[in-house]
């Protein structure tokens, strides 16, 4: 049963990440089309950057700990890139130069959105499967379930 809860947790985290990215993309598009000024746009984006990064790292770590290798690897590049941005202090949008980088920033967020969407599909499938498995297989293999990493890898 705990697995279902775990999947649900992943689902929530993933939704939050997607939402945050969508929000940022909307802000950037609004900025480009002149519906928002750079001050607003950058402050509203910058407000969610750090939470998003933290959430992403949490998600990655959870995936690692619970042994979902494939999905962990999927999130790893973004985590590393985020870390790089953070150490170079480039993670926040610079209000003074925002227009110069708006396209690059948008592209980065689109890529993230793509990855998260993919992750989302995986999570949905896995949670369905997991739900089924726990329900169906529980009576038969109560003990076999524990951390069979190989099976996870093979499943994808």
């Amino acid at each position, binding site marked *: 049963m705990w697995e279902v809860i775990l999947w649900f947790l992943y689902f929530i985290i993933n939704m939050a990440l997607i939402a945050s990215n969508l929000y940022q993309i909307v802000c950037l598009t609004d*900025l480009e089309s002149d*519906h928002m000024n750079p*001050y607003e746009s950058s*402050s509203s984006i910058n407000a969610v950057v750090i939470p998003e990064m933290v959430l992403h790292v949490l998600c990655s770590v959870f995936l690692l700990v619970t042994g979902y290798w494939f999905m962990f690897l999927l999130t790893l590049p973004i985590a590393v890139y985020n870390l790089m941005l953070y150490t170079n202090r480039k993670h926040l949008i610079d209000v*003074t130069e925002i227009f110069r980088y708006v396209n690059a920033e948008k592209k980065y967020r689109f890529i993230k959105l793509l990855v998260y969407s993919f992750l989302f599909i995986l999570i949905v499938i896995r949670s369905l499967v997991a739900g089924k498995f726990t329900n169906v297989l529980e009576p038969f293999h109560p003990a076999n379930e524990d951390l069979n990493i190989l099976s996870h890898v093979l499943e994808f």
Partner: protein
Amino acid sequence: MGPEYPNRANTYQGPGSTPFAPPRNNMPISSNSVVGSDASSFRPTSVPGPVIGTGAPGFRPMQPGRPAPAYGPPTSGPIQRFATPQFPAASQVPPPQAANIGQPIVPPSMRPPPPSQGPPMSTSVNRQPQIPSVPIGSPPQSMYSASRPNMYQAAPFTGPPFPGGFQAQQSSPVSPPPPPPPQVPYQGGYVPPQPTTSTPFSSHQGAYGRAPPAASSSGMYVGSSAPPTGGMSDLVEDFSSLSLGSAPGSFDPGLDTKVLPRPLDGDVEPSLFAGMYPMNCDSRYLRLTTSAIPNSQSLVSRWQLPLGAVVCPLAETPDGEEVPIVNFATTGIVRCRRCRTYVNPYVTFTDGGRKWRCNICALLNDVQNDYFASLDATGRRVDLDQHPELTKGSVEFVAPAEYMVRPPMPPLYFFLIDVSISAVKSGMLEVMAETIKSCLDRLPGSPRTQIGFITFDSTIHFYNMKSSLTQPQMMVVSDLDDIFVPLPDDLLVNLSESRAVVEAFLDSLPSMFQDNVNVESAFGPALKAAFMVMSQLGGKLLIFQSTLPSLGVGRLRLRGDDLRVYGTDKEHALRIPEDPFYKQMAADFTKYQVAVNIYAFSDKYTDIASLGTLAKYTGGQVYYYPSFHSVIHKYKLRHELARDLTRETAWEAVMRIRCGKGVRFTSYHGNFMLRSTDLLALPAVDCDKAYAMQFALEETLLTTQIVYFQVALLYTASCGERRIRVHTAAASVVPDLGEMYRQADTGAIVSLLARLAIEKSLSYKLEETRSAIQLRIVKALKEYRKLYAVQHRVGSRMIYPESLKYLALYGLSLSKSTALRGGYADAQLDERCAAGFTMMALPVKKMLKLLYPSLLRVDEYLIKTPNVDDEFSKVCTRLPLVADSLDSRGIYIFDDGFRFVVWFGRMISPDLARNLVEEDSSTEFSRNKVCLTERDNEISRKLMGILRKLREGDASYYQLCHLVRQGEQPREGFFLLLNLVEDQVGGMNGYADWLLQIHRQVQQ
């Protein structure tokens, strides 16, 4: 909000509905027609992007989450003072414009200037008939394909053979028979010039004597006195060429470098541009990198140079050419309904004068009743001569109330002054106080001008200057973590009311801190305090800084003395602000209409890279006086501060440049902050600031024949009137690369290249920046070579467009400029950054002067000519910047627009030297001990006269005079030799080597 923006709906259009509003995507024309849709696509909830048109621009009236006191109802005292109507009917409608060259008003089907006045035609026609008596010498044969020998006969030849061959200004050269553009769409006068004459095909023979290995004809180039001249009516190209040795060092030492092209006449504006469209604004306001706009993407990609414009909206005008002011008091400003273009000389009136067609988006607008005038037989408005906006490329409209979101602000000057020990010791404080005091009468905008002061060391001192006081009251705040402003209402006072208090303050300021021994600087907190005081109104903040910020927020550390960083990937970090605090402050300042000017004085490292950021994003300027000492730098500071305070300034401005369909501005370069994709926020603008921008084609193929550009600057004049300055220019679209090169403008290109290079140096190594400049030049010349090499068998000679003959040289001097030269040891980090900030704002002419300074020889003039005023122009023959120009028996003046270096040769006559400087000739000029002062003899007076005249010619900076004696190292090297850009200095190529290097890369 609503009532204030009657036409907002038109302005904040959604992307879909306005293909012509600058930043939008391409949209099919068909969607343009419905104007009503504009309104619906406007999102009412969002903050309006300020558009010059609506008048809102400067101020964002509703900014959720930011209460923005500045925009609220005026609560403080000062504001009420000017809340009263500020519209003196100062509509000095200028005298009727008499002769309108190229009347814009033509019958409906016509485009602007009537056929009769087609300017391009007329320029070329008169040269047409000169049938060539071409000296068909042997040289041409090596150049032109033998298969077309008959062409020579047909060649119109322009005048006698030109030995030198620089005839660019007067000839509109020939293109290889470009398919004659269809005449129908051009409609009359606007045929882009079909060049009919050719610039003589000139070659600099014998420059580098090695014969071009190209052909058997090689011998004839060397030293041949009659260069191949002559043109072919159809085929001849107007490139210039240069015979270069094909290998380094291979050129004959006997042949000198004199024939290399040098901009010794200074900046030459492309006359073609002005000639073609006489109603364009003057080139001092707007210069395009090429006035032939490419018609396709592929052409753009082949034009390897930047495609853009340099705009100096408030450039100083000579007397008699002031921009006319137009007041549409009753009608409201006439603008296109859709694209918000201002009415300009290129709009056409149709339907008996009842409608006008916008030249940028082609929409047919109704003419308001008050603006109606009937058309005469030729389709011109009958009252044309009363409307400067229909005849002049530059006009100024008086903006009505819908262009304001708050009452126009008064001119406001706020001073943030460092009073730590180094500021006092250097004498800066005294000079500054004295200068400000002397300028009080001349501050613009009296009697509304506001003024205020804060001083700081390790604490922050506020001054209450209430008019009822007799002495200013000083309040000290020492809590740097939690800044508060005591008596916020009395820190900023009206100058005319508190004049006595302000003067008393300035008188006592130097003595007040005379014995200050504080070495700390709480710059960041003081900056925040200034922000709090100023955010109500905006204005200009002048910061006098002589100690590295060391306390509180925004403190900086010493960096840049680490030699090892240079050449690594971290090198560029030295040139960008260390602390994000400065960028954030700059953004906030701009938001509240505060422009920051930095005056930095320290003899030690002050991190100009960080401080300058404040100026960069607020439309300000950086003045840097390394090792300021009042004895030496007094006049420089006095002049520059006085100019900063008294020059005409445009307050709370925004600028936008619109352009025709299919073209879009993509990037902007200069000191400003972008407020939306195409709106430049400029809290203060003046005549010394220029902005560069690049554009791109939106469509793969342009269908129009002419592209129009319109720069609009909405600002508050010092008198309290809101105005819009509009500059309009047209440029023709061409289908061929040769034409683009022909109409290229070196000044604008170099200006843009320099800004791009400086921006690049903020994220890359200097080395890479310099090679990027070189690569760009190489690519451009390579492309040009491809265009002609095959056709004309140029062999191994270097060819370049006549219009870009100085490009290589300017590229070289750009690589050697203070901002980009060498590495760690070649320029102090602070000087480098300061030069970078300065160059980002320089207008074209000053930029070129800085890159290729003038070197004048004056000793003969001093001794012989009787009177200063006589033959002054004779002195002004500029010499090439090579060490060989310096004769040890002469006295030379080196002038780069920022300083003079007076160079004394080793062998000048002793009494000449004695007449000029006090010490006898053996004295060293080191440590700036010797100043050039006017002495009581004719020669000295004459020299000072020359310097004065040179200074008058260029008043935006004060050229401090440095004396240098020949052979006096390292002083001579630092001041002069390093700046002789054509010489090989500090590991950088000399001019000849540079050309060779470029040439070799071009040929690869």
